[in-house]
């Protein structure tokens, strides 16, 4: 029966496809962002409700984290530069991350066009870290900012990871009265630490 459904859907599609075929278009070379990518990236992160910091080194980043999230009880870091108090490698089940106050992840790249950061399953260690954490701190190398989504999609490799997310600031909604509220379901805040 399973096969029957497959074959019938495919047969119907084959039969019904318009005879007049449309060619795959040539992609033009679009105008590229001419401004400073890093400054554009910073501004777009802020537009999306996030914050950007430039700690001098890993120690400064660690101190910044401590001051930014002084109340945090559980900090879980998936990146070696930052030390938390919950070992991500010991997490066997995503549910174990339900009480994380701050999740720390190193992103592979940022996008100047919109302030997105690219996080893969390999960066998150456990995907849920990116979504159950109340707050997120994202480390990003200032050299890893690309111009726009065309560039971004040339740089990521979906064939290498089961999960990848372009994250643009914290969780947001405007579902009640069209009023923007951050922290709908995912992170309440997102800070990007520019750190090589």
């Amino acid at each position, binding site marked *: 029966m399973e096969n029957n*459904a*497959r074959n*019938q*859907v495919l047969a*119907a*599609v084959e*039969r*019904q*496809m*318009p005879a007049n*075929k449309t*060619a*795959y*278009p040539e992609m*033009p070379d679009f*105008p590229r962002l001419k401004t400073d990518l890093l400054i554009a990236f910073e501004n777009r992160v802020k537009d*999306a409700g996030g914050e950007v910091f430039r700690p001098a080194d890993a120690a400064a980043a660690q101190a910044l984290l401590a001051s930014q999230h002084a109340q945090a009880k559980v900090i879980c870091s998936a990146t070696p530069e930052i030390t938390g108090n919950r070992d991500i490698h010991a997490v066997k*089940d*995503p*549910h174990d991350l*339900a009480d994380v106050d701050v999740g720390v992840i190193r992103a592979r790249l940022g996008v100047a*066009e*919109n*302030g997105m950061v690219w996080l893969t*399953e390999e960066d998150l260690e456990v*995907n*849920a870290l*990116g*979504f*159950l954490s109340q707050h997120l701190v994202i480390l990003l190398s200032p050299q890893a900012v690309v111009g*726009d*989504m*065309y560039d971004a*999609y*040339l740089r*990521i490799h*979906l*064939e290498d990871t*089961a*999960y*990848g*997310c*372009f*994250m*643009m*600031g914290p*969780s*947001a*909604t*405007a*579902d*009640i*009265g*069209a*009023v923007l*509220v951050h922290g*709908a*379901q*995912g*992170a309440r805040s997102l800070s990007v630490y520019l750190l090589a």
Partner: protein
Amino acid sequence: MGDEKRVDVAAHAAAFLAQDDVHEPMHDKNLWSARMKRDAAARAVPEWETLRQLASQIKEHTLTHLYNYLLEFESNATKRGAKIYWARDAAEHNQHVWDILREKNISSIIKSKSMLQEECGMTAFLENRGITVTESDLGERIQQLDDQPPSHIVMPAIHKTPEDVAQLFARTIGTDPRNTDPHYLTEAMRNDARRRFLEAGAGMTGANFAIAETGSFVVCTNEGNADIGASVPPVHIASIGIEKLLPKVKDLGIFIRLLSRSALGTLATQYTSHFSGPRKGGELHIILTDNGRSKRLGMPDFWTSLKCIRCGACMNTCPVYRRSGGLAYGATYSGPIGIILDPTFDESKYSELPYHSSLCGSCTEVCPVKINISDQIMQWRKVMAAKKHLPVSRRLAFGAAGKIFEHPQLFRSAETMASGAIRFTPDFLLYNRVLNPWGRHRELPHFAGQTFREWYLQYRAKNNEHGEQRP
């Protein structure tokens, strides 16, 4: 099919307008504001019109080669470890979901927004079988708690005021009924949903795009709710309409740039998530669903409606939708895109929808994949008229008008038939008196003492070469 009662969208819209002085003005204002933000976002992209053209062409290319792309997607997704199911219709889609849940003894699921799952009536189906289904998108959850379908593709509860939501949440999750602050209400739902995410045995999502080249699919949300559903419970089930395919990863550069700018005027959704096979320690089930799509693909006038990426821009811009509320359409899809999609599911039930349009054409211009929505609305009217779905009074009225316009002499005598102050009512009124509500909100036009034709005959028609042929 066709035995369900015809949806009287005009009457529902009139009721939406008449309920009070708050809902419709707010609805109109919020959606117009989304349209304005969309304009600003589009204006900031110099290649905007080129992007629309490319997106349209990529979609048309994919649809005209859909058979191969479906096979490519299936093969690549399977290689990545996803389990693929095929569903011919809604019932088969729902059965697959039920089978997966039953096999794993799952009694509670959390789902993100999926128009396909709406289309399939999946939630009711599963609830009837004892499954607890929780919508995780805030707007969808509001609608679920109020036992209503979504009224907008991307803003499901946009027809409700914060006061409405405060009353609803007070009744259902115990918030303070006097507190209408969206921050407070959102926070209350966050806390209520959190435990449901943690208890769920499976997370369900839809897909905005599916990529043949890698067997991946992309889900876009602002709340991150789809990602929680996909990353916390051990099982992820994705419902994907077969029209969602795109050939290549790089196509996403175009579509992601268009989608949220068109929908809400934002540069992208907060989360653009790419699933290529199951996550570490999890399972991924993909249900490729037809449910009328292959049939639509074979409709010469309507197949390009399959290009739709569900951004909702046509709804935001539609002056009729903004004043009607999405629920007035009585269908899964509302607004301009609903008018052209819904009749493919049930021609008779949705036969009035194509008339719920002033044919202003704004939907066509705003559509990021250049669907000729307005032309298709007109085309659906032709289908409805030809198949006699029109109400009889309307058929007779326009039939009579047609007769009059066919014969100049009849037209003249209708025009000059003196009757009190009204010598002549415009064609569409004169022959439509049964339905004529012109006067409720409008004064009748003042009729001229002399028609243009009379003036012309008196002052201009000296050489009678084009003179009237008198009977």
